[in-house]
């Protein structure tokens, strides 16, 4: 594989992780436009552990994911009181907060960014992505997976049926944040340099779009959406300055034609 395709493949895998991090939260009927913040936590924690403390890269990524998961739980609890637009604003604010913290701390390199990470092997990124997909697939087949869908469909009726709504909602945020954390750790060790602006709100938004486009009810939808969002900009390179315009029109067209996403319909529980 030449460098171009290798890079594209890694971008795809990281986009898959990002999309799945949003997917998990959407699946529980919540929305997060703050996953770049969780990604930042994963990226910085993993980067600092591997550069300052000399921890191995895979272990650093895993630890970064755990730190992001913790943030997910902390954000998930107040998020219980927020719905719709307010939750969007709340999660955006979280990302802004994380960026500011990364900007002022010494250990994160401030505005100069964090550097000195060794490059992660592609195989590790593949392993992380496959592991996340496999675990999510299994999770959706459990009775907890069914609880998640009931909460998304009607949280009050789910509660009246005995579903622990708070647990399910916070768990979903935690899980989504953990996945975003893995994406951040992989990203930090692939580009070998991260700075606060890598985790802007537009990055958070770009994590949501593939899921809406690919289909929010299925893991395959998020993966397909990530593929489209990775490849489409490359295919449109011929259009040079008009690239983003065509890109935008295509995305709008897909959303209008397939409002439930490219892969719609949910899987049933056995």
């Amino acid at each position, binding site marked *: 594989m030449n460098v171009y395709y290798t890079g594209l493949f890694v971008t795809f895998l990281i986009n898959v992780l990002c999309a799945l991090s949003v997917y998990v939260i959407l699946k529980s009927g919540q929305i997060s436009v703050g996953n770049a913040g969780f990604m930042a936590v994963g990226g910085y924690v993993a980067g600092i552990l591997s550069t300052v403390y000399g921890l191995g890269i895979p272990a650093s990524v895993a630890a970064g994911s755990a730190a992001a998961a913790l943030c997910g739980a902390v954000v998930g609890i107040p998020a219980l009181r927020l719905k719709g637009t307010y939750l969007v604003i709340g999660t955006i604010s979280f990302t802004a907060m994380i960026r500011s913290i990364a900007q002022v701390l010494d250990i994160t390199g401030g505005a100069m960014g964090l550097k000195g990470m060794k490059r992660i092997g592609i195989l590790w990124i593949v392993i992380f992505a496959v592991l996340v997909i496999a675990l999510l697939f299994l999770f959706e087949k*459990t*009775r907890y997976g069914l609880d998640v869908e009931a909460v998304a*469909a*009607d949280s009050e009726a789910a*509660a009246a*049926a005995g*579903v622990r709504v708070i647990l399910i909602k916070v768990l979903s945020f935690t899980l989504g944040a953990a996945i975003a954390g893995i994406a951040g750790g992989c990203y930090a060790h692939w580009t070998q340099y991260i700075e606060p602006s890598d985790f802007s709100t537009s990055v958070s938004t770009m994590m949501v779009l593939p899921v809406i486009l690919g289909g929010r009810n299925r893991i395959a939808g998020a993966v397909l959406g990530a593929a489209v969002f990775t490849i489409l900009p490359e295919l449109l390179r011929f259009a040079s300055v008009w690239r983003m315009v065509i890109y935008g029109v295509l995305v709008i067209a897909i959303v209008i034609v397939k409002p439930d996403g490219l892969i719609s319909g949910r899987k049933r*529980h056995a």
Partner: protein
Amino acid sequence: MLEIRNLSQYYGEFCALKDISFDLGENEILGIIGQNGAGKTTLINSITGLGGRPSGTVRLDGTDILGKRPDTIARLGVARTFQNLRIFRGMTVREHLLVAQNRKLSPGRKLLPNFRNTEDAGVDALLEFFDILRFRDDDAEGLSYGDRRRVEMARALAGSPKLLILDEPGAGMNEQESEVLASQIREIRERFHTAIILIEHDMSIIRACCERIIVLDHGQKIAEGSFEQIAADREVQRAYLGEEDA
């Protein structure tokens, strides 16, 4: 089994429930009637933990449940249906029952992935009971109004509740369906050993099912007794028929 004392619910200045007290015995079917806006649904929302900040005492088998979260109350054995149907969008009839069954499973069992369509005698028996077994793997949202009501009742029973609260189960049903429903409600008690609180406008269902009836008017309990006692009560007649013959 259920003990309610001085249950009140205010929304700002407005008093939706005032000093409601009553008891419910094991295996009893209690009817609650009253005009629209009398506080019937508010009363059961207060019991099941949905909405508002009620005051007073509600005890289920000695455990104070007032102010607890709705899922906690459900897990203690109180199940309900909703006046405005609350179906899980996109989920099959069978899945509705599995969700309610979940409360009885251990966390470990809940984490086991399931790939095959396992036979579940309990689910099938419930669906059979409500005559909706043929819709088992259909999207519940696509069913008729009456069948969706039956899905809700089956879902409520799937969690093996001690107390079942039915909020106008007969709404939108014709005379014949109401008759079937009334006999089903009595049968539910025998088969599933549950106490039942029944809110209903259809007096034929109330008469056929309830040993005891509570009448609510403007958030207050104005009468309690058998159907005959209630029907003869002047206060009830005034609330239902207007002031002229009071």
